């Protein structure tokens, strides 16, 4: 089927819906989403959204900007970080006006709490900057934005999976191709502008806080179309995932006073981050946990440590951390009021992704040349405000600030530009991919290949990396790709074929993994979440630059682009 719109948004999480709010009613816009909008993983975000409102104590956007830059180990583009920190305040107020039910102070203003890496006066001590709704801030963002979409009568194509992006030979974006999962039909969306807001790809790793559906679709599709990806080596592991399950326990647990303890009962963060302690940035805390485990100080000598909330008032645990408490009770059968909770780092957030400028325009080179009509925002994008390591509560800000900016820019773009003609047979690639999977006869199972990928990525490309490990991973990827050509699926029907969907998603995961590993192997230094045991120091002389990786007919090509530094010169990063 053929559709024509001014603007098409792919993804209905926080980023996509925020952009939709700018366009609805002002131009002809549609949102395509493989999940029902309210099922998007933005709804899983717990702890909060940062903005220097200074409601509880003195705070300034420039402190927020500094923390973001330092937290990202100076790989952050500072023009973007400034936009983030300044516009966060406005965005929060806008959300409030749309009905977001923030927790409140006794005088009725928005309450704020502490979060990792957010500090007063350029690093002096933790500051209360995170606005929140109990421990379901993301749920409330998703609900609030979906409610606005209903109010604004946004047109949704629910359970439509994007399979391809349409670009002309001279690099103008003209639309997308999607599969209607329910019917198995192909749909061509012809548009003046497309926004990709498809979220992250945590499912490349075995232990992750990410939904089963977070398979990097948008990122992989862009990569397949020959556009570059940025900083793919930077993938964040959140310190407190529920042991083995990976389900996230929010940093808000530590923001409210929770403490990490090793097998000996020691508050081990005293050794690694004497000022911020348990509220040091995530890369630092995750590595510290693994250090403890390697030194044999995990609980019972095993590969986990404890998150201890038992000293907190029961009331705080039950109300401000209600969902987290529920997770622990449901999945571990433990009670956080009296039991310490077994945790291990869990794959959480992609700092890298589709390169964009501060207006969400997708860019293709070191000069930030934009692709006309193509935008990206949210976790799939890389502006880059998170650099080498994202601070907690900064992703939700990223979604609303840059989702909004992208939406506004798109509106202007569609008003000023005409529709470009579509290429001939716009859906041939998507059809070929689906037909191939439906008809292929081999011996390999999608689930087996996926499990091996996740296991291997966990072993060789997660918190600690080495040249040898990454090369081993590259070989493994060659093998897995090869086997992927021999998959067979059981379900050959057209209606709601999730067997097919999972096979397509595995293809995307393989692409994301390949990009991560190539970039990680090349970067011979340690910065933020990227830690090379064979190159343990940060090396600004050689590596203060963003990686761009592009797929060409000759294999993956790496190039680099400068980091934008405006206010804060790189310094050693201690907490």
């Amino acid at each position, binding site marked *: 089927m053929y559709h024509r719109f001014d603007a098409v948004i792919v993804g209905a999480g926080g980023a996509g819906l925020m952009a939709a709010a700018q366009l609805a009613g002002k131009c002809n816009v549609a949102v395509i989403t493989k*999940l*029902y909008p*309210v*099922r*998007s*993983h933005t*709804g*899983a975000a717990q702890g909060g959204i940062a903005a220097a409102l200074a409601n509880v104590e003195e705070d300034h956007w420039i402190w927020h900007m500094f923390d973001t830059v330092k937290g990202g180990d100076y790989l952050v583009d500072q023009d973007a970080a400034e936009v983030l920190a300044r516009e966060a305040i406005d965005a*929060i*107020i806008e959300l*409030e*006006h*749309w*009905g977001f*039910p*923030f*927790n*409140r*102070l*006794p*005088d*009725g*203003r*928005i309450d704020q709490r502490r979060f990792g890496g957010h500090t007063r006066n350029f690093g002096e001590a933790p500051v209360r900057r995170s606005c929140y*709704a*109990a421990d*379901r801030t993301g*749920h*409330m963002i998703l*609900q609030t934005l979906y*409610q*606005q979409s*209903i*109010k604004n009568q946004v047109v949704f194509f629910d359970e439509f999976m994007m399979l391809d992006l349409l670009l002309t030979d001279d690099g103008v974006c003209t639309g997308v191709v999607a599969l209607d999962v*329910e019917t198995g039909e192909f749909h061509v969306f012809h548009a003046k502008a497309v926004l990709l807001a498809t979220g992250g790809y945590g499912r490349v790793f075995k232990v992750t806080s990410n*939904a*089963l*559906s977070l398979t990097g679709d948008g990122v992989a599709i862009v990569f397949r179309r020959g556009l570059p990806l940025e900083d793919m080596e930077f993938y964040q592991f959140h310190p407190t995932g529920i042991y083995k*399950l990976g*389900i996230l326990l929010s940093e808000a647990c530590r923001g409210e006073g929770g403490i990490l303890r090793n097998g000996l009962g020691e508050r081990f963060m005293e050794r690694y981050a004497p000022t911020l302690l348990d509220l040091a940035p995530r890369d630092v805390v995750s590595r510290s946990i693994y250090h403890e485990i390697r030194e044999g100080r995990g609980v019972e000598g095993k590969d986990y440590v404890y998150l201890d909330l038992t000293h907190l008032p029961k009331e705080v645990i039950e109300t401000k951390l209600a969902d987290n408490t*529920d*997770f622990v009770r*449901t*999945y571990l*059968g433990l009670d956080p009021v009296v039991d310490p909770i077994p945790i291990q780092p869990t794959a959480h957030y992609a700092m890298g992704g589709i390169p964009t400028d501060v207006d969400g325009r997708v860019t293709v080179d070191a000069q930030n040349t934009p692709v006309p009509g193509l935008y990206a925002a949210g976790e799939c994008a890389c502006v880059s405000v998170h650099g080498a390591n994202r601070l907690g509560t900064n992703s939700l800000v990223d979604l609303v600030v840059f989702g909004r900016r992208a939406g506004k820019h798109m509106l202007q773009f569609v008003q000023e530009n005409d529709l470009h003609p579509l290429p001939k047979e716009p859906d041939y690639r998507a059809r070929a991919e689906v037909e191939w999977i439906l008809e292929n006869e081999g011996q390999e*199972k*999608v*689930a*087996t290949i996926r499990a091996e990928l996740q296991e291997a990525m966990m072993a060789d490309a997660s918190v600690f990396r080495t040249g040898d490990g990454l090369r081993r991973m590259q070989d493994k990827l060659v093998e897995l790709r090869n086997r992927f050509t021999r998959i067979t*699926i*059981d*379900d050959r*029907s*057209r*209606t*709601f*074929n*999730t*067997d097919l969907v*999972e096979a397509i998603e595995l293809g995307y995961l393989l692409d994301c993994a390949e990009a991560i590993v190539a970039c990680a192997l090349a970067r011979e230094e340690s910065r933020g979440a990227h830690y090379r045991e064979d190159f343990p120091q940060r090396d600004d002389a050689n590596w203060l630059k963003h990686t761009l990786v592009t797929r060409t007919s000759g294999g993956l090509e790496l190039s680099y682009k400068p980091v934008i530094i405006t206010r804060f010169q790189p310094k050693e990063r201690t907490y």
Partner: protein
Amino acid sequence: MQVTLRIQRFNPETDTKPHYQEYTVEVEPTDRVLDALNQVKWYQDGSLTYRRSCAHGICGSDAMRINGRNRLACKVLIKDLGPKITIEPLLGFKVIKDLVVDLEPFFAQYRTVMPYLINDEPPPTRERLQTPEERELIEDTSKCILCACCTSACPIFWTTEWLGPAAIVNGHRFLFDSRDRATEERLAVLNQRFGVWRCRTIFNCTEACPRGIQVTHAIEQVKRRILFEQS
């Protein structure tokens, strides 16, 4: 441990009516029912179809009937069910395939309660004020993830046309928001023929809610509000 899953299957391309199929899988007692379904799908029968995403009870994708009760498959552990588990799609909705049902009518009901803040007064430059006590009134109903467990557990919903508990919960969320100004319009919707008065206070909905929302209580509060505004 080994468990047997007895799952209702239906493929519209080949079946005229649903049938049951049994699978035996090896799982840990602490695994989720969703893990067991995944075992089947990934290693035994890829054609088994269900929705899922977050796998920890916050996205609302995998509402289904598990041993006769509406649950999220990712929020029930095997050890709480025993070795034989019957899994069926939610009642009251058209089955698209296996455990996947058509939720469009559910979302349509939701949309009729105007589930968004209505307040045309020019907003202040900063946040609107709301005290913690005022905020507390919507704490419970704002937790709703629109999973449909409650609505599809309601016997009234199976037989008559009516809003259903989930839509009322979301009406409540705005009706009791101190910032909202559309009380009259909201009550008109909730008070209509298909509105709150169809509820017989059977509590199935409250029992079914995976978010622990006091659904029946919220419906009662809405009823009282209607009576109060009318008097």
